[in-house]
């Protein structure tokens, strides 16, 4: 190799390093979007978004963050929260834990000095890895409908909020629904259920509590793992076919869901006896399976649809003006998008609650945390928000960072989801001691002294 060529290569390497090093130093080079351009620096409320739009879970990430961003755009179009506009910056995680941590560190402080409200990684793995960091940095970590179950106990996890539905409530609600279908929860005795779960922290989170519930109701449960990402499930479904259960609970995520439905069809297991959990409940989970998905049941906290007044407002003020975040506008009003909107509503409401106490200005993460803990969304507030039926009434406290714990069931008719049940409540008093015991063990391992929730 000639010297000139090697020198040019070297220059290229040097150039790479030069690009990289300033990046390390000025961590928030990523464009801060939203109100940042039109507002004085530091005067907006900032959200770091650890989003994911590529990889096997892209459908979930792009829908969720699309809905979240569109809702924030709506708030900005309406003049912000009591005059405080919202801003945000994005970083791609690909649902990968290391990238998620890098994104957390890159984005946790805004480029213009606006205070950070909360992080919403929408990934159990990333949430686990940033839990300590969030607590140390005093930034609330929002894990809506997922996350670490024992973080429901706010006395041990002051900065973590598994809003609406933690994984245990999810399973308990499904058992209650299966009980209703059987004609009473006591009729479950002797029945067989298979849980097909995603081989990840998220997928395994409920294995322990499923055993507890199974023992309580006298159900035989078989748990079968599908390794990430789950695009091959032939052997798992043959096993299911052999054991021939009454119900299959599908605890899937991303590409695993349509593959499960298709494979079930192939081995001859009926779709209307498969119940998808909260991350197996979107159009993107059912539609790709085509006919095989017809009759598939799943739970939801946030029905799809565009008829909710709040979605109509987003359509008028954001989508129709060409500012929508979705690259495919047809996904407006789908399950993931609506979850993003719900997440936006809850974050903004928490800031509203906190502003009522601390003043109408951009708030620190610590102050927003107080807002989340004192969140109280009742029927009247839901009506004012235009989100009746989209969000469940929610009341949080120091000891309860979940709040709701209810789900509705929906069924796929081949083209869309139809809601087939009213709100089904989880057996939260039954779950609470398990959650507290787990939180206590965590506190012991980490040397945390729990807060006294009776005092606040």
């Amino acid at each position, binding site marked *: 190799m000639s010297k000139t060529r090697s020198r040019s290569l070297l220059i290229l390497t040097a150039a790479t390093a030069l690009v990289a090093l300033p990046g390390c*130093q000025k961590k928030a080079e990523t464009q801060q979007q939203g109100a940042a351009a039109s507002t004085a620096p530091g005067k907006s409320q900032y959200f770091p978004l650890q989003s994911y739009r590529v990889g096997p879970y892209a459908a979930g990430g792009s829908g969720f963050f699309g809905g979240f961003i569109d809702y924030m755009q709506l708030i900005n179009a309406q003049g912000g929260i009591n005059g405080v506009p919202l801003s945000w910056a994005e970083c791609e995680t690909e649902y990968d834990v290391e990238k998620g941590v890098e994104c957390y560190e890159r984005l946790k402080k805004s480029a213009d000095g606006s205070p950070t409200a909360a992080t919403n990684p929408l990934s159990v793995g990333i949430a686990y890895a940033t839990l300590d960091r969030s607590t*140390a940095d005093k930034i609330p970590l929002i894990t809506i409908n997922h996350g670490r179950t024992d973080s429901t106990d706010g006395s041990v996890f002051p900065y973590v909020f598994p809003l609406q539905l933690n994984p245990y409530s999810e399973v308990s609600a499904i058992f209650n629904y299966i009980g209703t279908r059987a004609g009473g929860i006591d009729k479950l005795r002797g029945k067989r259920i298979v849980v097909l779960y995603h081989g990840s922290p998220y997928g395994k989170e409920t294995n322990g509590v499923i055993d507890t519930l199974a023992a309580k109701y006298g159900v035989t449960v078989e748990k079968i793992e599908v390794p990430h990402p789950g695009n091959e499930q032939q052997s798992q479904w043959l096993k299911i076919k052999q054991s021939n259960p009454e119900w299959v609970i599908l605890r899937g995520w991303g590409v695993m869901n349509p593959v499960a439905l298709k494979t079930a069809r192939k081995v001859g297991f009926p779709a209307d006896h498969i119940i998808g959990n909260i991350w197996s409940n979107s159009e993107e989970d059912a539609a790709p399976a085509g006919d095989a998905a017809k009759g598939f049941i799943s739970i939801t906290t946030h029905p799809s649809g565009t008829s909710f007044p709040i979605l109509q407002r987003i359509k008028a003020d954001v989508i129709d003006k060409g500012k929508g975040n979705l*690259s495919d506008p047809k996904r407006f009003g789908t399950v993931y998008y609506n979850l993003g909107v719900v997440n936006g509503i809850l974050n903004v409401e928490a800031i509203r609650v906190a502003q009522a106490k601390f003043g109408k200005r951009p708030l620190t993460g610590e102050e927003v945390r107080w807002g989340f803990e004192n969140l109280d969304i009742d029927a009247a507030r839901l009506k004012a928000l235009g989100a009746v039926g989209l969000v469940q009434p929610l009341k949080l406290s120091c000891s309860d960072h979940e709040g709701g714990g209810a789900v509705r069931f929906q069924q796929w008719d081949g083209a869309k989801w139809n809601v087939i049940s009213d709100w089904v409540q989880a057996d939260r008093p039954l779950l609470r001691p398990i959650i507290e015991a787990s939180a206590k063990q*965590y506190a012991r391992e980490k040397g945390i002294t729990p807060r006294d929730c009776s005092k606040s």
Partner: protein
Amino acid sequence: MATLPQPLVSTHPRTALPALIASVAIVAAAFLPFAIGSDYLFSAILVPVLILSLAGLGLNILTGYAGQLSLGSAAFMAIGAFATYNINLRLPGFSLLLSIIAGGVIAAAFGVLFGLPSLRVKGFYLIASTLAAQFFVPWALSQYGWFTNGDASGVISAPPLTLAGYSLDSPAGRYAYTLAIVAVLTLLARNLIHSPTGRAWMAVRDMDLAAAAIGISPGRTKLLAFAVSSFLLGVAGALWAFTYLGTVEPAGFDLDRSFQVLFVIIIGGLGSIRGNFLGAAFITLLPIALSLAGAAIVGPVLDPALLENAQKVIFGALIIFFLVAEPDGLTRLLDRALRTRSSWIGRSKSRQ
């Protein structure tokens, strides 16, 4: 015939210059970041680069110096991480530092175990046997709750980082801890490579029959390489869990991680110590640089998903470009640049 043939040892004509650069680099690594560092620099850049370098060094000893191919690096990292966790949790009196070392020793024991096939098979067949380790270890770790202390989701959470009573639980503290361990182990590995043991590895790599003919036992040499390599990988895995992420799950040590370590040594340079650091820096920094550059240049106009996919394409293309342009890795590139530079200096001196 008692002595080894000379070319096996790579003797550099100018040993003073690299030594000078190495010492400058160590001093810089120890002091510079603390002067200019931010949380981001420490916990998102420097710590993962250092740990990947150590893992690369581990694999490089096995592959680059002893010539044994392996795709099981992440499995040994997983063993190190989980062994460290369980020793620290269950055995009283084991501080974190002691647990990390013990975790490395356990990883070394498993390295010898999974290295046994190397006594009979070579090349692609050996890859298949290390691949078995790669699939078996994460499976076993997630199958039995004992390894994760019965945690519901199978994720272990790191205890607070302390050293002799001092808390190092800040980004800078974690960096210092990682740097100290990586520096000491790199120094030890370097001395080992330049000792008769290292020369025996290279002899086996270049031609094991010839090595046997001059009195080196290929079996023992290979297994020793597996042990040392797995020890370093195990320590890297423990650091990955305890000083970098703070949590770890078996799936975090999947085949992708093994490939990542393999890319580190291929891009950095096989049979080189410096190459591991260059390769690790390259593989960590390039995607971040691309993402920052992409966001800054075309961020507002382009669809974010399209931008992400374009970055992946560019990343892949750049790796192929570097490999084609310099198959011996970044270390050779740097070597040549340094030599050119010193020859310039030499010339200007001779003119005076």
